[in-house]
């Protein structure tokens, strides 16, 4: 008994008097078992390999083989059949398609594209979306970003089409075959937990820098949500309906086309929407591997800390995100990022029906008119003299801010001081603590946490992932990243819970907050790096700030939803017993919303990690930096190992925080 209490993490130690009662709970039994295992294995492992950071004896050096593989690929890219007859065609098809779409967009001209997009938005989502589209494209032109916007759009269109096609096919397979579904599900779950950055390196290894690898990385990133939602939609078909269709003597194909697919329409649409949003997010990040377009402009500006130019390219990205989301989401009000996880949003089923009555001819005429308009307007690209240069004024404003907010505000210090304090007082001790943790202790801790919250399967995956990081020799670096993630998650949760509690109690705050959350949830991660560099300079603190802002909306949304769902009767009875507001919250609402709270933690961890990693671009260091370094030096061995470690870290964090019940309930 005593071995258990000494070897398990301190938070699990129960006072002796309560031990017996505590043991009746499953969590305590798990901990006891784990404690015994640790107590037996840890001294052995420590005696054999030492007890500090991950022992060298247990690492495998992959740098050599990976480096040789990289050299081989570069040397054989123009000669080996694998490249000439397989990868070459993939690359060629992508480039040809992107070029085709880009040429069409150019041929339509700015007037044609703007009018066409508005028309499409109007048809799909109504007048408001059309106005949004019109204004957004005009702003992109005004900012002098027309050509980059068209490039990003061309890349996006191809990537989204491919993602939706691939995702729908996989989803169809998963929806129709149980075995396929079981095989796919853990893979899709894992892919959703991985940061975008981890996807970049493998494709660069094969395809080099350019548009083709960028599109491929985007497809790999954006197809899973489509596959998952398609499969779920198909599996969710009402059995009664299916029986009815069967009894009418429908063939398998008829059953699929007339009953299952139409009934899964909501999920299919949501899948398309999610794929589009993920694709945009990735298409922008892929500028690091030569995707060109808007992301490249942001990347160029960030590398010279030119906040003004970064903003000029960042605004079109945000606008594009909003237009795409509003257009494809129709009248769906729940934001995209968490929507697939919470309750399915209500789509007004009949909303499409009346519009369908419009005939094809209207469409043909409209399209012809748009093209004619584009032609008549003459200019293919946005006219140069219709642009507003915002870079210089923004930079002036930023300099003013740096001069006045950066340091020395009496009383509260400046943003630079906060950044320094956050780094010095929070990040550094945490990092040193994690790096000082004996490796077997870290493994035991992760196993304990994951098992308490989830099942032995999740615990095993989490522990193995962590061990894999050690085996790759990235232990210390990963602990650095982990410290950044944990600190940022803590801040996110505190802030998120506080906001959510307020929002759950006051409908007015909730109404005010909703549109803000909507907008924030649609923005690609990359965009958040711009303002934080202006405010906090360079280093780990700005990366953390970006991560917190990025993850906050999802946390607020999930938690406030959970709190609001608390049974009113339970609340009423608590109130009648004279519970104060705080007591109600602690003893009724929080316990009742346990599942949502855990989900919020899980989402916070996954989202924060993804941004902390791209923080490597603004001096965040650690694993993200190694990926950037690998890409920058063409040293793909370093980059790939860091990328794998990132994937393992993501998997570990996801599994540790994954509640027992599957997310979709």
């Amino acid at each position: 008994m005593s071995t258990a209490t000494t070897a398990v993490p301190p938070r699990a130690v129960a006072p002796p008097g309560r031990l017996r009662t505590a043991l009746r709970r499953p969590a305590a039994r798990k901990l006891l078992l784990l404690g015994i295992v640790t107590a037996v294995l840890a001294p052995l492992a420590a005696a054999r390999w030492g007890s500090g950071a991950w022992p060298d004896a247990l690492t495998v050096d992959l740098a050599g083989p990976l480096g040789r593989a990289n050299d081989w690929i570069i040397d054989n890219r123009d000669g080996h059949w694998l490249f000439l007859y397989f990868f070459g065609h993939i690359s060629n098809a992508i480039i040809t398609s992107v070029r085709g779409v880009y040429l069409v967009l150019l041929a339509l001209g700015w007037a044609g594209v703007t009018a066409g997009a508005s028309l499409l938005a109007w048809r799909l989502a109504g007048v408001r979306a059309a106005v949004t589209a019109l204004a957004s494209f005009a702003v992109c032109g005004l900012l002098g970003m027309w050509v980059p916007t068209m490039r990003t759009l061309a890349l996006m269109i191809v990537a989204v089409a491919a993602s939706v096609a691939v995702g729908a096919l996989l989803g169809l397979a998963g929806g129709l075959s149980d075995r396929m579904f079981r095989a796919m599900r853990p893979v899709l779950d894992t892919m959703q937990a991985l940061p975008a950055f981890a996807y970049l390196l493998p494709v660069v290894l094969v395809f080099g820098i350019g548009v083709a690898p960028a599109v491929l990385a985007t497809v790999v990133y954006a197809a899973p949500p489509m596959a998952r939602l398609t499969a779920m939609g198909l599996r969710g078909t009402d059995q009664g309906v299916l029986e009815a269709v069967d009894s009418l003597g429908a063939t398998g194909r008829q059953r699929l086309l007339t009953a299952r697919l139409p009934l899964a329409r909501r999920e299919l649409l949501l899948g398309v929407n999610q794929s589009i949003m993920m694709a945009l997010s990735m298409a922008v990040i892929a500028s690091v591997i030569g995707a060109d377009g808007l992301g490249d402009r942001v990347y160029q500006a960030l590398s010279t800390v030119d906040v003004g130019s970064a903003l000029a390219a960042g605004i079109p990205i945000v606008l594009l995100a909003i237009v795409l989301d509003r257009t494809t989401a129709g009248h769906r009000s729940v934001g995209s990022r968490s929507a697939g996880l919470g309750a399915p949003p209500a789509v007004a089923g009949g909303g499409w029906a009346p519009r369908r009555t419009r005939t094809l001819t209207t469409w043909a005429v409209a399209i012809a008119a748009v093209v004619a308009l584009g032609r008549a307007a003459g200019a293919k690209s946005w006219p140069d003299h219709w642009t507003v240069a915002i870079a210089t004024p923004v930079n002036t404003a930023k300099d003013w801010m740096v001069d006045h907010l950066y340091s020395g505000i009496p009383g509260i210090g400046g943003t630079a001081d906060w950044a320094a304090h956050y780094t010095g007082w929070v990040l550094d001790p945490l990092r040193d603590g994690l790096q000082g943790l004996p490796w077997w202790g870290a493994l035991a801790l992760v196993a304990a946490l994951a098992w308490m919250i989830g099942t032995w399967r999740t615990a095993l995956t989490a522990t193995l992932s962590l061990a894999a990081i050690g085996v790759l020799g990235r232990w210390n670096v990963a602990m650095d990243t982990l410290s950044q993630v944990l600190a940022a998650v803590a801040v996110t949760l505190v802030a998120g819970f506080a906001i959510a509690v307020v929002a759950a109690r006051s409908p007015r705050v909730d109404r005010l907050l909703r549109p803000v959350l909507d907008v924030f949830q649609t923005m690609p991660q990359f965009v958040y790096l711009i303002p934080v560099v202006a405010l906090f300079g360079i280093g780990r603190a700005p990366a953390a700030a970006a991560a917190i802002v990025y993850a906050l909306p999802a946390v607020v949304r999930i938690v406030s939803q959970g709190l609001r769902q608390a049974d009113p009767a339970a609340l009423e009875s608590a109130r009648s017993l004279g519970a104060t507001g705080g007591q109600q919250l602690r003893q009724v609402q929080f316990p009742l919303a346990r599942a949502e709270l855990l989900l919020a933690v899980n989402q916070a961890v996954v989202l924060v990690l993804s941004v902390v990693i791209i923080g490597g671009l603004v001096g965040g260091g650690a694993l993200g930096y190694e990926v950037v370094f690998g890409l920058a030096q063409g040293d793909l061995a370093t980059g790939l190992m860091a990328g794998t470690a990132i994937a393992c870290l993501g998997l570990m964090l996801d599994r540790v925080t994954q509640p027992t019940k599957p997310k979709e309930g």
Partner: protein
Amino acid sequence: MRKALITAAAIGLTTVTAVTATGCGAADMTKQSSPYANAAGTKTVTLSVQSWVGARANAAVATYLLEHELGYRVDTVQVDEVPAWDALSQGRVDAIMEDWGHPDQEKRYVTQKKTVTDGGELGVTGHIGWWVPKYFADAHPDVLDWKNLNKYAAQMRGPESGGKGQLLDGSPSYVTNDKALVKNLKLDYQVVFAGSEAAQITQIQQYAKDKKPFLTYWYEPQWLFNEVPMVEVKLPAYTDACAEKGTADPATIDCAYPTTPLKKFLNTEFTKKGGKAARFLKNFTWTKADQNEVAQMIAEDKLPADKAAERWVHKHPEVWKKWLK
């Protein structure tokens, strides 16, 4: 919904057509240029632009002249130094305007694969080294010899240098032997990468504002010298023997960086088919003073790159007229 499906189907069809169009012969991905190049009847040139301001100055002036004098459309793509070679060999960019010496890549792409062609010298000579601020060197003149650096390690500590002195490095993409140098010269320093040159400059400016001592990897020509005067620390002299040793195993380098004449490199295909633009880029050569003039306008006067190039072009027709021949 149906419309969306039709749209998706149409795009899918285009993709399928594109796939069939590529046929079943060999498709050499090293000969596939950017999908955005030469679109809609324009002639385009794609330049690789690096993050440092000198490189931006080259690209800005070349872009301005190509667009206004020769009627091209110029795309610039930010690619880091080493991947830029790969992109150049694949024709995804047409030219690198300023290369600081990558013997490995030169051997692979210029000598062996012949996909990249030497574009001649830029006319500017580059020098990499270690530098300390002038205010610190004036107070402690002996810091300028590397043998005395350990004496000052304690004063050079930084938050990320783990108790040792901090040797500030910038972008991960730059040519650097600093880790090997620190080890081989037995210095009590830790190389700290700021992550980007911009980050490094911000850091240097902050140190200079507070008159704090620092040791940094830096290079010449660079406009920052005008704002923060710095003095170079003498490292063991660069010799051919040391260079040979370094080529064999980069981890054994124990001498200073060489002085490098900066070079241009062009895609081989582009030199053949690039016409006037290729000839122009080959002829492009200017001096350190010219480059600094443009760099300064961009970095310090905060002029947009095209405006800076325009000013320089109007002032120095005698320099660039020769490039158009």
